[in-house]
């Protein structure tokens, strides 16, 4: 019996790494969105650094973009089989 322990370990490692990375990036995106909301509310009261909201929004978009890329890559893998 030939068991491919190597391939098994690779699969396990890749699955763990990709999952944790994607979820972490997505969570960062959500955090950025909620920072932006915070920045927008402070700006109404007083003159906060105006770039804060926009920067957070750009960060959020970047994070979600990375997640979307991961999903697209997954779809490509699925269709390429």
């Amino acid at each position, binding site marked *: 019996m030939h068991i491919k322990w190597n391939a098994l370990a690779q699969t396990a490692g890749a699955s763990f790494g990709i999952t944790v990375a994607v979820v972490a990036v997505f969570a960062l995106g959500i955090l950025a969105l*909620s920072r932006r*909301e*915070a920045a927008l509310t402070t700006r109404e009261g007083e003159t906060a650094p105006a770039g804060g909201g926009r920067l957070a929004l750009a960060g959020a978009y970047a994070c979600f973009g990375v997640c979307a890329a991961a999903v697209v890559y997954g779809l490509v893998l699925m269709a390429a089989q």
Partner: protein
Amino acid sequence: MNSPFISPFTCETGLSKPERSGAIFANVQLSATWVTIPKDSGHRQDTIGTTIPGSVHLPFTKPAYGHARHQRPCDNYDDCLGMEHISFLVAVVIITALAFDFTNGFHDTANASATAIATGALRPKVAVTIAAALNFAGAFLSVKVATTISGGIVNEKAGIHPEIIFAALVGAILWNLLTWLRGLPSSSSHALYGGLIGATIVGVGMNGVNFDTVTTKIIIPAVASPVVAGLASWGATKLAYAITRKGNDAATTKGFKTGQIFSSSLISLAHGTNDAQKTMGIITLTLVSVGALPKGALPPTWVIVSAGAAIALGTYMGGWRIIRSMGKGLADIQPPQGFASESAVSTVILTSSHMGFGLSTTQVCTGGIMGAGLGGPKPELRWSMVRRMVYTWGLTLPAAALVSGGAALVAQQGTWGVALVGAVLVAGSGAMWMISRRQPVSADNVNDVSDVTPVEAPVPVDVNPAVAPANAPTPASTTVAA
């Protein structure tokens, strides 16, 4: 009458997808040896190069008979009675394969939608509708998995008859329905593999099964994949909570719920790609075995469409009992946990099918939910449910093998045997459906579980009418069969 007609379906083989042809070619090479023709095995050769095309006498092939070059002596059904027992068997196998596909969809709706429904990311009906549509779409995405229905588990040279495939499907369907009735997420793929193994042992003998392959391709991934999914989901949950701890609570919940729509959709798509193709493979192999499709044919379009439709319909019907046990029975899942679990599940399924490990979506999902439950802010799991699920996983393969072995024994006796097994299948399915009506679980009450403590014996709640009124009307009785 020895000359079988050619099925019209041979004409539409979807050659417009050239990238598929390599995989399919390999598939049919394999399948041609995997299934042998029980009777009249020479008939295919007889017809090649003659003016009388071969055909299979399927009831639904008649409208397309006109494609032949000649008026054939068999254009009238009554002339073809000689083929009838094979035709009957082929028709029965195709219908049973589609029925299995239906139970597969129905059983596995929970995989993609249980967590999305439990966290409120999607309303129940919406969740199953999306899952159904994506399962259907997934059926068209790829045909590689169709090459691994037998996957070397069954020794191709030993010869597998349509009767054996039929018996395998019967065992798989009955086990799927029984576990659904008890609300237990068991693996449909394992049920099918178990059925194939049991039917092959009875029909061909022990040498028909490659037990090494069973270990490396089924048992090891079955043990490893839920653990990997659980670990990944646990880590992702921890991290998701740690990162968003300082964020606004409402925004975080909304964000993860939106994310869940995508992650659960990906699971549905992957599920359709993997599981609908098992049915496609079975139907194609059966058609090849009786000469209705040439060796080397792609799965005909009607096979792809009907397999996709069967799994989508099953998914849309929703195995609500299983959705309830997975979404509410294991742990209280919040949106970050649901998103982490679904991401882990899609990743594990995609990476392992990329690396060539077949695994059970159901077991991966359960592992993911367990990991998310333990990784949450209040780590908890309902261990009694975990235990029941793990027992079921262990039982699935041998139980389906046992039922299919028995079915193979009877089905091999001839047409009456096939008919008898078919009747038992219909009666058994009907009985389980009737029992399920006693405590229906539907889209409306799928989330109504205050405290799920599933009881071992689900069915005979009202066995003793004298005693029952005294202690029956507790909330527990409504969750008993969930």
